Each structure stands twice: as C-alpha cells, then as structure tokens.
C-alpha cells in the first residue's frame, strides 16, 4: 500500500450570519500513489472545500491529514474549473506557465522560458500561443496551459476541479486524453472533482460519493457502480445515466 495521502475525520464549518454551517463532517479518505480518485457530489456536498483543504488553501477545524514521508519533497498542484480566470490577464502565457519556478526559486520568469516552452509542447500548445495573452486563447488552449503550469515542477499529486466542464464536448475529449497520457508518462496521482459520472466512470479507479459533507460510499468504481448500497448513490447513478448491471 503506497499511501500518498490519508485524511482522517476531517471536519470543517463556516460561520454565516452567526450560524455555523457544517461543510464537512468527518471525512475519511485514503489516496494511493499512481491512482485516480474522483470526488463526486452535488453542489453543497463539500467537495470543493475538501479539495481546498488538501491543497492547503484552508485548514480543517479538526481531523488529521497525513502525507507520505511527511510531505517532504512532495509536490501538489491544481487545475481549476474556470479557464478564463486561471491566469493573470496581464502576463503572457509562457510567463504564467513558468510561475511555479519563479515562486520556488525566487528568480525572474525569463530564466525559465525554455522550460516553459518544453512543457507547453508536451501539452500540445504551439509556440506562437505562448507569446499571447490569456484572453486571446480559446478555453481549451488555456486549460492546456494551466495543465502545463500544474505539471512543470513534476508534482506527485494533481487536484483537478471540474477541469473540462467549462469546455465544449469536442475539446473536452482532447483534454481528457491529454490528462490520461500525462498520468501514464509521469506516474501522476490524480484527484478529480466532477459531477459528470460518465466522465468519472471512464477516468478513475476509485470514487468517493459525498453528500452534505458526509462520505456516503467510497471504493473501487466498478464495485460502487454495479452495487450501490446507498439510495442517494442509486439516484445519482440513475441521473448520471449509469445503467446498473444486475
């Protein structure tokens, strides 16, 4: 068991107008290296908050997060849903792709231009796209650049929050194929957040079903899809067009 990340009894609440709203209520998840895991749930299920906790953008109220090797030499990056907000509009695309280097090594972006160009060609971006501004690119191109930026430091874990839901169907397929290819090539571990069950079924090994901050079911996707134990899960599968094998 090559455990990359383990979440134990994670709880989080927010104060809204002096009322405490429980976003996460005792989440227990384990992520293995090299696998893909999907966090599935409707809006309000807490999946985005959970992702932000894993990324370190916010902290849980209680619970334990343990990383492999205590997170030494472990890189985590993210790809978010909205391509139009993902990069600084006043910086050229290659500068944004090079930003992880700029932050980690505290040098100007120009030092890392070549590395940015290399990564960009890995994700299928032509060189002329690199010297443009984000608003000049299509949604698919921006997401490719965001993926390049997320992978340029060779992370161990990548969190992808609905990476293709803002894109057209034909572009979605291109990005999905790219993500699969890169995972195989660099032995990445993915955590996907998605509500698209068809996509999830195609993409991941393990799935975690979230509802109202609680983890309803989790396990291998074949097991959950063919044998859902929870009524809500069944409802979700039906709505997502997953036909249960008897």
């Amino acid at each position, binding site marked *: 068991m090559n455990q990359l990340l383990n979440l134990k009894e994670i709880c989080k609440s927010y104060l809204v107008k002096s009322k405490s709203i429980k976003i996460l209520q005792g989440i227990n998840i384990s992520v293995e290296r090299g696998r893909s895991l999907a966090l599935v749930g409707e809006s309000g299920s807490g999946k985005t908050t959970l992702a932000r906790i894993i990324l370190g953008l916010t902290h849980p109220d209680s619970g334990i997060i343990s990383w492999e090797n205590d997170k030494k030499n472990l890189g985590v990056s993210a790809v*978010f849903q909205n391509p139009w907000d993902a990069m*600084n*509009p006043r910086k050229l695309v290659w500068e944004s792709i090079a930003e992880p280097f700029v932050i*980690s090594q505290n040098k100007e972006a120009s030092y890392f231009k070549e590395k940015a160009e290399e990564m960009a060609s890995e994700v299928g971006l032509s060189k002329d796209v690199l010297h443009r501004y984000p*608003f000049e690119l299509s949604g698919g191109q921006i997401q490719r650049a965001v993926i390049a930026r997320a992978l340029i430091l060779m992370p161990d874990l990548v969190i992808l929050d609905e990476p293709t839901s803002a894109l057209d169907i034909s572009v979605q397929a291109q990005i999905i194929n790219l993500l699969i290819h890169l995972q195989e090539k660099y032995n990445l571990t993915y955590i996907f957040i998605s509500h698209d069950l068809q996509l999830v079924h195609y993409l991941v090994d393990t799935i975690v079903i979230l509802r109202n901050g609680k983890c309803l079911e989790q396990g291998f996707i074949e097991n959950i899809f063919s044998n859902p134990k929870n009524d809500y899960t069944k409802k979700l599968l039906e709505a997502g067009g997953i036909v249960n094998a008897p």
Partner: protein
Amino acid sequence: MNKYPKTVFVPLILLLAILILSFLVPFLRGGIASQYDLHFERALQPPSLAYPFGTDSLGRDLFSITFMAAKSSFMVGFGVVFLAALIGVPIGMIAGLKGGFIDTVLIRITDGFLAFPPLILPFTITALLGPSLTNITIAIAVAWFPWYVRIVRARTLEIRSSGYVESAKVMGAGWTHILKKHIFPNAFPAVLIQASADIGYAILMAAGLSFLGLGAQPPQLEWGLLITQSRISFLYSWWTILPPGIGLFITVVICNYLGDSLREYYDPRI
C-alpha cells in the same frame, strides 16, 4: 500592453505640447514676456498684432503670461494626483490584502478624511500654514487620497479571489509575490484611469483656490490667480479673463479625454 492606441497618445502629446509652449513662448517673446516687467502705460490694451491676447491691468503681455502660467497649474495637477496616489494606493492594497482588523482601522481613518468637504481642508491648512501653491497641493492631495484607497482596495479584494491568485497560493507563493506580480499590475490600470482625469480636476480646484487667494500668490503666474487679477477690469476689458479661463477649460477636456481613452483601452480586461 505597451502598445497604447492613438487615442491615448494624442492627449498626452497635447499636454506635453502645452507644457513645452509654457517654456518656449516667453523665450520667443523676449523682453515683453517677463512677469515682473510692468508697463502701466500699455495696460488694458485690446488684442493686436503685437499683443495677440492684449495686455492686462499691469501691462503684461497676456499671450506670454497665459502660457507661462500653465507650468504652475500643471505642477499642482500632477503633484496632487501623484501625492494622493502615493498615500492612497499602499493603504488600499494593505487594507484589501490583510482584511480583518487592519482593514477596518484603515478604512475608518480613510472615511474620516472623506468626511471633510473637499474645499474645507485646504482652507484649514492654508489658514494654519499660509497660502501657497505647495500648501494647497498637499491640502488637495490629503482631501483626495481616500478615493484612491477605495479604488485600490476594491480591486485588491477582487483580484485576491481570482483563480490565478488561488493557483499562485497553491504553488506556494507568499504575499510579496502575489502583491508584486498579480495584485499591483492588475489594480494599477484603475488607478491610472482615475488619476488621468483627476489631473484636470486638480488643476481646476487649485485654480479655484488661487482665485480665492489661497494658492498662488502674486507675482506668481497661475491661471486661477490670473482670473482673479482680472476680476475688476474684465467687464470693460473682456480679453483679460478669457485666456486663462480657456486654458483651464482645454486642459480639463484633454485630461478627461485621456481618462476616457485609458478606460476604453483597459475595459475589456479589467
């Protein structure tokens, strides 16, 4: 991003032209331009070939005098805006970035300054420190900086919650990096737009204060001061009040045009 369109360059060049003329005209006009050169015998002469704008009650050549006064007016205008931004932008960024208690404290102090009617503060300061162009520059800047605080704070709050700043945090960026690379470059256009229109209004306000005797003092040359100096005579010598008035009008229009062009240029991206 350095490719500003013609609509931005044209007003900038016009302003520069006025400034250059401000130095050039007295030089070209030689002796008759000096503001200290009073010739009562040729006072209040209507416009003629020798004196295109006529002469004022002290016998000065209005043509040269009006252009020379542009210097002071511009200095105040740019000075006010520069100072107001210098004070307001850092306060706004810190308030927006830190949030919480620091934000509340800074905003309340700023609001305190906003509570003063914009002319009262200069009155008070000149009452304490004496009337001069420098003092009213400081006074107007102090009355105006709250607007820059607000603009920058609003932009900072917006930018803070954007996807690219969140991504930078995931990459491990500290606040210095985020401030330098993301917040400042994206908040600055809003400041620039406000500032360019404000230059015109600052010049106008300074002229108003000089008109009241609180700003430029004779024998300094400033448009507001020139207008007040022609108050007595202008009913019969209409040419004495027009040139500085038109000078103010044109300058404010150009500055507004600059502000609008900059806003159009930045608009799709802000």
